[in-house]
């Protein structure tokens, strides 16, 4: 207990100096806790909304693969089974509803259309739609848009814009609606025509009573159709919804992990300094009989206290943040805030664990203080030998890692050596940073000295404690390595996309698709082909077929016109009419297929068939087995495509684009894009991903800046007398501030240069390895100078910002007290 009480007093006595440590741990823990609270709350809410959405459904009959349809005959047969009390055919699909402002309501994917169901849709006003041209709206959407019974609305399913009248408003437990989507109900016949096919359904919902025999139902079901109980369904739906949240939470947790890792450097610095400052005190403890273990434990207990306080506050902040995120997300289902034991345990455990882990080394160092140090009052600086060992280890790791990374780029599949190389290289460089700091800062020292004696002092101060400088700079290095690597990869992807666009792979002028990337109206291609402007067109039809027991993606095209739409560079054979297929070189080699081979195939509807391999083409990005539409279409229930490729007379012109859009009813749900618009979208997506990742990495950079603040505050504290002397012999306050600021900038820039250098190297290797593996032939290594320079400026800026508070403290030091300090 004494240990605990002494530790508590020590912590309280040094609370100002522990502030940055607490903040760093707090931030990391808050991020972890917030992510976990958000994820668990969302998952639970999804489960609840899935359950509600299935009220009145006991068993659902549906196709295994989305896109297939069930017919009325099957519904009638299931309805006739003993024990079945109700069999409702349900139709459902993407339906874009325009608000009063003409814009799409909702975020695209949860905007649905369906046919009415007695159990799931409860009318509140009006009546259900009975004929074409009538719809009902869910009450949430009605409230949001201001539509009421009698209003005419604009909507689009997959073809031209429709203008039906609202006949009713209903309540629903539908998960999509709970998640912020819209639901439009059509009468069943219209829904079938618009969303499926006349007389066919997406699924059949059964209500069953006593006497129901699941096996009898199974016996009725054709190939590719399954029966799922409501419980299984709810589970699967929740799982699917949770997956999207899981992906987000993994990114968030990874970023929190990086931030906590960065925090370790800060904590190590803090505890090292605390131990150094208390050398005499600890030596005295040893002199009066404390064992090494007791000294180590006393430091660890301090770390435990600091970690606990920081983690507890972080947990509270994280719960608040997670709740705010959950409450603010209007595309998420409503539900209670869930803070489970795992969240609390993981958050506190991580925070305290990281603090203890980081304090362990300084604690060991504390135990090695000899009792005589109590008398001498001096502590031996880190011996050259220990740095030599450290440099040796670092050099071996860094060189081995670097070599592996380089090797990975010359191999066909270099993912493993690349991963291993990076895992060795980064720690190797971090171990080497004290050594590197001297070298790199020595290079800039002359420039600093030229700025005057203050610059010279700042440069020398920066390398006075190489370990601390290294740890401080490393924190920034980690963040900037990731940022620079991402930037290089992003620039490479950008260049690859541009080169792809400039290449002649795509000879089509326009690509028509849905705003939600869903299936286009089946007649889209026919409508377009009637236009005088269109010289060639083809839907890109995608399905899965089985070859030798392996399911593969098959794309079907109007092969007679493919030359006008895409360039396939054949390395062997070519396209032939009939039951011919062409395949990319990689797939052909992987399967040992040769031109002239006959391939056995099982089509999506289960029918067997054969294809003759007539050609092998050089892969680009849309690879795989390609066949003619006439071969695939007979095996599809619903003939649809997500894209239609179009070649127009005169190429890309505004008039052509208008003609295409007009032919398709000027629907807001249909996109007509030329190659450059398509490219802009791809590049825009890369940009969004990068922005999100940069945002996440900002946390690590913030912690790194806290680390610099911490180090500078320590340095100012330790150099109180020097600053007092400088002030006495003629350095004014502005000069003191400049000195601290310059030192901070030197350390930050060192971290920045190291990070950008490592990042460029890693980014180059990752881009090279991934593009080789994925066959992205247009990949090129690009050095985005502007952005990298911006990273360095950011690092320097971080140094300036981090120095504000320590510099002000240094300038305000009472110079007499500074001179007098013992």
């Amino acid at each position, binding site marked *: 207990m004494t240990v605990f009480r002494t530790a508590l007093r020590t912590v309280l006595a040094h609370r100002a100096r522990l502030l940055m440590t607490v903040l760093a741990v707090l931030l990391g823990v808050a991020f972890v806790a917030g992510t976990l609270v958000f994820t668990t709350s969302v998952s639970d809410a999804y489960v609840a909304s899935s359950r509600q959405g299935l009220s009145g459904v006991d068993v659902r009959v549906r196709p295994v693969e989305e896109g297939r349809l069930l017919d009325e005959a099957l519904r009638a047969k299931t309805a006739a089974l003993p024990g079945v009390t109700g069999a409702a055919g349900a139709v459902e699909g993407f339906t874009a509803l325009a608000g009063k402002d003409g814009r799409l309501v909702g975020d695209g994917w949860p905007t649905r259309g369906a046919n009415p169901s007695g159990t799931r849709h409860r009318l509140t006003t009006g009546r259900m739609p009975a004929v074409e041209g009538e719809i009902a709206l869910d009450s949430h959407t009605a409230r949001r848009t201001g539509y009421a019974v009698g209003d005419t609305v604009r909507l689009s399913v997959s073809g031209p814009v429709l203008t039906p009248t609202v006949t009713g408003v209903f309540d629903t437990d539908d998960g999509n609606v709970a998640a912020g989507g819209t639901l439009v109900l059509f009468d069943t016949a219209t829904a079938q025509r618009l969303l499926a096919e006349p007389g066919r359904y997406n699924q059949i919902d059964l209500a069953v009573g006593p006497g129901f025999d699941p096996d009898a139902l199974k016996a009725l079901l054709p190939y590719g159709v399954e029966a799922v109980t409501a419980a299984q369904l709810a589970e699967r739906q929740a799982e699917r919804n949770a997956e999207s949240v899981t992906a987000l939470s993994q990114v968030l947790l990874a970023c929190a992990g990086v931030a906590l890792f960065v925090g370790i450097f800060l904590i190590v610095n803090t505890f090292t300094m605390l131990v150094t400052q208390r050398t005499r005190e600890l030596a005295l403890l040893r002199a009066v009989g404390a064992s090494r273990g007791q000294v180590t434990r006393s430091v660890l207990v301090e770390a435990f206290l600091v970690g606990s306080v920081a983690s507890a506050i972080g947990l509270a902040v994280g719960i608040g943040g997670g709740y705010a995120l959950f409450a603010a997300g209007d595309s998420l289902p409503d539900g209670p805030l869930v803070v489970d034991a795992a969240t609390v345990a993981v958050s506190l455990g991580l925070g305290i664990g990281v603090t203890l882990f980081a304090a362990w080394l300084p604690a060991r160092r504390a135990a090695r203080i000899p009792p005589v140090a109590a008398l001498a009052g001096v502590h031996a600086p880190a011996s050259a030998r220990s740095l030599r060992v450290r440099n040796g280890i670092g050099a071996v790791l860094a060189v081995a890692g670097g070599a592996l990374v380089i090797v990975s780029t010359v191999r066909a599949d270099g993912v493993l050596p690349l991963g291993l190389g990076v895992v060795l290289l980064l720690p190797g460089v971090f171990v080497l940073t004290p050594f590197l700091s001297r070298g790199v800062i020595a290079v800039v020292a002359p420039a600093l000295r030229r700025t005057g004696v203050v610059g010279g002092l700042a440069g020398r101060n920066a390398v006075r404690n190489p370990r601390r400088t290294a740890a401080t700079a490393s924190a920034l290095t980690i963040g900037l390595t990731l940022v620079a690597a991402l930037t290089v990869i992003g620039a490479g992807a950008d260049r690859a996309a541009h080169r792809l666009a400039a290449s002649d792979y795509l000879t089509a002028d326009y690509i028509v698709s849905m705003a939600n990337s869903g299936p286009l109206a089946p007649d889209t291609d026919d409508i377009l082909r009637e236009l005088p402007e269109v010289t060639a067109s083809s839907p890109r039809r995608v399905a899965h077929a089985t070859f030798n027991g392996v399911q593969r993606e098959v794309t079907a095209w109007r092969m007679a016109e493919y030359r006008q739409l895409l360039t396939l560079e054949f390395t062997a054979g070519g396209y032939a009419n009939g039951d011919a297929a062409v395949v990319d070189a990689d797939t052909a080699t992987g399967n040992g297929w040769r031109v002239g081979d006959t391939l056995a195939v099982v089509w999506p509807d289960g029918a067997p068939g054969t294809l003759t391999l007539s050609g092998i083409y050089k892969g680009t990005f849309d690879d795989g087995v390609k066949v003619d539409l006439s071969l695939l279409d007979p095996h599809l229930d619903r003939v649809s495509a997500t894209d239609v490729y179009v070649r127009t007379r005169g190429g890309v012109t505004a008039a052509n684009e208008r003609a295409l859009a007009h032919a398709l009813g000027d629907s807001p749900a249909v996109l007509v894009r030329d190659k450059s618009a398509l490219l802009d979208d791809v590049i825009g997506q890369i940009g969004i991903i990068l922005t999100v990742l940069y945002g996440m990495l900002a946390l690590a950079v913030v912690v790194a800046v806290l680390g610099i603040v911490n180090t500078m505050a320590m340095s100012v504290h330790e150099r109180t007398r020097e600053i007092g*002397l400088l002030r*006495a012999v*003629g350095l004014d306050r502005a000069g003191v501030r400049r000195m601290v600021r310059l030192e901070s900038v030197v350390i930050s820039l060192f971290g920045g240069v190291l990070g950008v250098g490592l990042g460029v190297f890693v980014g180059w290797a990752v881009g090279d390895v991934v593009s080789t593996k994925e066959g992205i032939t247009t990949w090129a290594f690009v050095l985005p100078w502007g952005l990298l320079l911006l990273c360095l400026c950011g690092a320097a800026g971080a140094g300036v910002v981090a120095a504000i508070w320590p510099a002000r403290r240094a300038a305000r030091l009472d110079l007499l007290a500074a001179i007098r300090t013992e």
Partner: protein
Amino acid sequence: MKVVSSATDLTKVYGRGETRVVALDGVSIAFGRGEFTAIMGPSGSGKSTLMHCMAGLDSITSGSARIGDVELAGLDDRRLTRLRRDRVGFVFQAFNLMPTLNAAENVTLPLDLGGRRPDREWLDRVISTVGLSDRLHHRPAELSGGQQQRLAVARALASRPEIIFADEPTGNLDSRSGAEVLGLLREAVRELDSTVVMVTHDPAAAAHADRVVHLADGRVVDDVRGA
């Protein structure tokens, strides 16, 4: 004799109310050019405070302190700093030198801070006077205590200040090194025509001075000019 530093009715009060301490109680004193003065007195007599106030290291509660014709009371921090840098030299009891700078850099520190070009000839003379010509590229940690204090004297002399304030310059030295430093200050006054004010509680150190001022309870109680 020209007066280089003077105080008139100089008062310094620390704290307020119950913790109010009068450190200097209306001190009036003047130091003339080429004079080596020792200020003596028991602990708490205000001798260090007098030096700090007259050297522009500490603020004045009331009265006046001047360096040359410049009134220190009312100068802002930046002007005070410039004044110390250009016109005053300092030798402290301990911690006189920047550990990151070598001996030569420490000597020229005030000049470098002011962006002034050192007078080579003067500098060589000062350095040879303190006897550290062969130690110029050593760091302070590589010098003995006596060498460090001699280096501090050289630093104080380097900018040819109007006055040098020394605060217990021999307090941390053995008697031989102490005698060397005192000899150096004496020599600076005699050979280089400097003015030195030294705070000390050691009568042996004071014996090197031309004039000994005794302080007690913040007042001058004795002012003796020796031979």
